[in-house]
């Protein structure tokens, strides 16, 4: 058998060599593949310690293919009532010290995920049942609920109940004490669980129930404000602030209890966890692309996706491979590393972003001109797939350092410019960054500040009129392009897409465009070249997944500084390489990974 394979491989390499000038290596399955479904390991590196006997922990962890294991904390499993806690005294499965010791013995690292409110895969969101009295209600008036991977209905209670918060404080305190007493040094992340609804991340903590309403009214009253006299904008701002304060309150409780272990706060989006998806699940009409779209949406927003609610049958094919390649083996390890974006480990692929688009999240910014109005998302998705980041004030710090082999364009709205963003723009521009600024909503104060900056630095402002007035400023490699978004309001969608096409083409982005990719998920990653690859400056990895039930043929025209370098993990696919072109034919459920060497 192996001889046949070797011969086949040899013929294939010879076949490719007739077309390709540079060598193409054929390697198979480079990324660790998870074993058969195990309810204790339901999703990307997450271990549910309560789903298996403590006597099996060692076997389970030793079979785990990676080294970093995420352990979410199941509050109700440690306390039935919310008053007394079990850490191994009654049930051996609550003995987390033993779990940590086993992991150390097996050279595995445990990372604890502590819920800020609910974990939607647990009954009552993890709240001890005596405290789970009122279901939270979403913005559409529907009770917040999910369907787990085993078809159970999980109702998420409101965490605005003062009794729930009191009990939470007791639990965090007891848990922190348990960690300190037993000298457990594992990292702890405070997790804000949520879901994607209509493209927006919503926390399971968010609530519109009567419990929330009455506590919100008390909050307004304490701030000497009357609900009836607030304008819609003021009301939205107040509601946003109040929700944020409650989340901060839960976070503060975790912070005070975990001192040295706490790494920070992390948002996790549970795929398929919105009411729209729940209803679709109820009527059996979910398809793989529904789940896959949320995975990519999470990556774009720097929110960790989790597939714990996705039934296993959906993860046995192409979706499972996407989750394994992009989340378990790329995004999650990077996000959990404290130096995620500074880490220069050259063997590690990280997500590639050609654009970083800033969107303020404050409950009212949506009334101003947004990127959707300007057709930016449609343009980016059609030309760059999901390889862009949507940056908010929460994730801005992750993007401060520019990676040497990952050039990108940052986009901002004038109405989002405050002191922090203004300084961020100037710093990026002076360090050779590329910025596009929509001047719509820019206050007079910042108009003057930009003008002063240009004058003080004797910068030449070139003006061009194309659909709107554009101003172009350069400084070394740095470039700032400003345009007046107000003049684009009346333009047709096709004109707006054309507008983006024209201005983005002036930024000379080094990229391989993909044709006919409708229905095919694709994602680019990048790493620096290793010492054995010095002919390249960078290695880019393209993963292609066909989640449709049709054959898909896609073509890529290679720029002169790209060569195809490796073809990996081929499943139901035919890859043909021609001079300056690659053709990939993906059968249903097919996928492939292509590595490209990039040189100048």
């Amino acid at each position, binding site marked *: 058998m192996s001889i046949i394979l070797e011969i086949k491989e040899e013929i294939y390499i010879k076949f490719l060599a007739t077309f390709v000038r540079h060598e193409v290596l054929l390697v198979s399955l480079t990324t660790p593949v998870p074993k058969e479904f195990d309810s204790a390991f339901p999703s990307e590196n997450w271990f549910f310690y309560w789903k298996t006997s403590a006597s099996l922990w060692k076997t389970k962890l030793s079979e785990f293919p990676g080294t970093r294991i995420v352990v979410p904390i199941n509050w109700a499993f440690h306390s039935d009532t919310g008053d007394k806690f079990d850490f191994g005294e009654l049930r051996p499965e609550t003995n987390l010290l033993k779990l940590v010791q086993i992991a150390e013995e097996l050279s595995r690292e445990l990372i604890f995920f502590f819920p800020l409110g609910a974990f939607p895969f647990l009954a009552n969101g993890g709240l001890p049942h005596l405290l789970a009295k009122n*279901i939270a209600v979403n913005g559409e*008036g*529907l009770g917040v*609920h999910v369907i787990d991977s085993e*078809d159970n209905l999980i109702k998420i209670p409101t965490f605005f109940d003062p009794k729930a918060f009191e009990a939470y404080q007791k639990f965090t305190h007891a848990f922190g004490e348990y960690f300190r007493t037993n000298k457990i040094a594992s990292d702890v992340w405070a997790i804000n669980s949520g879901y994607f609804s209509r493209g927006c991340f919503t926390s399971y903590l968010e609530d519109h129930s009567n419990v929330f309403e009455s506590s919100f009214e008390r909050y307004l009253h304490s701030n000497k404000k009357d609900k009836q006299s607030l304008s819609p904008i003021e009301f939205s701002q107040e509601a946003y602030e109040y929700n944020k304060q409650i989340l901060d309150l839960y976070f503060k409780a975790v912070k005070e209890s975990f001192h040295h272990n706490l790494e920070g706060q992390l948002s996790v989006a549970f795929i398929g966890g919105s009411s729209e998806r729940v*209803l679709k699940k109820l*009527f059996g*009409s979910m398809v793989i692309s529904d789940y896959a779209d949320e995975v990519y949406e999470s990556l774009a927003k720097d929110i960790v996706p989790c597939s714990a609610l996705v039934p296993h049958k959906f993860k046995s094919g192409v979706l499972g491979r996407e989750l394994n390649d992009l989340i378990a083996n790329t995004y999650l390890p990077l996000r959990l590393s404290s130096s995620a974006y500074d880490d220069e480990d050259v063997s590690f692929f990280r997500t590639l972003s050609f654009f970083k688009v800033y969107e303020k999240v404050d409950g009212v910014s949506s009334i101003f001109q947004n990127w959707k109005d300007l057709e930016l998302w449609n343009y980016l998705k059609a030309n760059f797939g999901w390889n862009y980041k949507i940056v908010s004030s929460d994730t801005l710090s992750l993007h401060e350092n520019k990676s040497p082999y990952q050039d990108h364009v940052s986009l901002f709205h004038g109405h989002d410019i405050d002191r922090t963003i203004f300084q961020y723009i100037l710093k990026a521009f002076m360090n050779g960054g590329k910025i596009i600024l929509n001047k719509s909503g820019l206050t007079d104060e910042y108009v003057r500040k930009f003008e002063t900056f240009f004058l003080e630095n004797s910068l030449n402002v070139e003006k061009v009129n194309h659909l709107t007035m554009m101003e172009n400023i350069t400084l070394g490699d740095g470039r700032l392009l400003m345009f007046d978004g107000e003049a684009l309001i009346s333009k047709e969608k096709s004109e707006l897409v054309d507008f983006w096409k024209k201005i983005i083409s002036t930024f000379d982005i080094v990229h391989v465009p993909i044709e006919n990719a409708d229905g095919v998920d694709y994602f680019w990653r990048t790493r620096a070249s290793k010492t054995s690859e010095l002919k390249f400056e960078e290695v880019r990895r393209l993963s292609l997944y066909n989640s449709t039930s049709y054959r898909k043929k896609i073509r890529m025209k290679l720029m002169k500084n790209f060569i195809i370098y490796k073809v990996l993990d081929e499943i139901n696919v035919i890859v043909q390489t021609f001079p300056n072109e690659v053709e990939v034919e993906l059968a249903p459920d097919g996928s492939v990974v292509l590595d490209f060497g990039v040189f100048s």
Partner: protein
Amino acid sequence: MKEFEYVLGIYHYFKPFSLNPEPPSFYFLYFFDQHGFLDLKEAQDLYLNHFKEEGAEKALEYSYIGPFETIEKLNQYAFRLCEELDAKKINLISASEYNSFLESSTQATQLASDILEKGNALENLDKKKPGLFKRLFH
């Protein structure tokens, strides 16, 4: 042509866009048929042509159908939609009814059957039973 066994509509009386000055109204949040989410094109056209009220465009952007000033108007629309789609019946469920089914269910299948069986059903009496020919070839 697509055959509709039933159409199910979930609605709520609320103010979906808190930043807008309009008062609360009735809105359809979701429509289903036996295959899953209903293709909203016909439902949207029917609303825009015969039932349109101020604030409709914003609602349609979010895939809501509305606003309807009164529950009667919402019912009239639902019945008309049932006729247009030639569906046997349209089942209407308010968000609060949905929540009470949710409260009493523990399994997803139980919630699904409650929604289908216990809603407020409007029968399309004009919908004729298929003849022998139609039954044989569909």
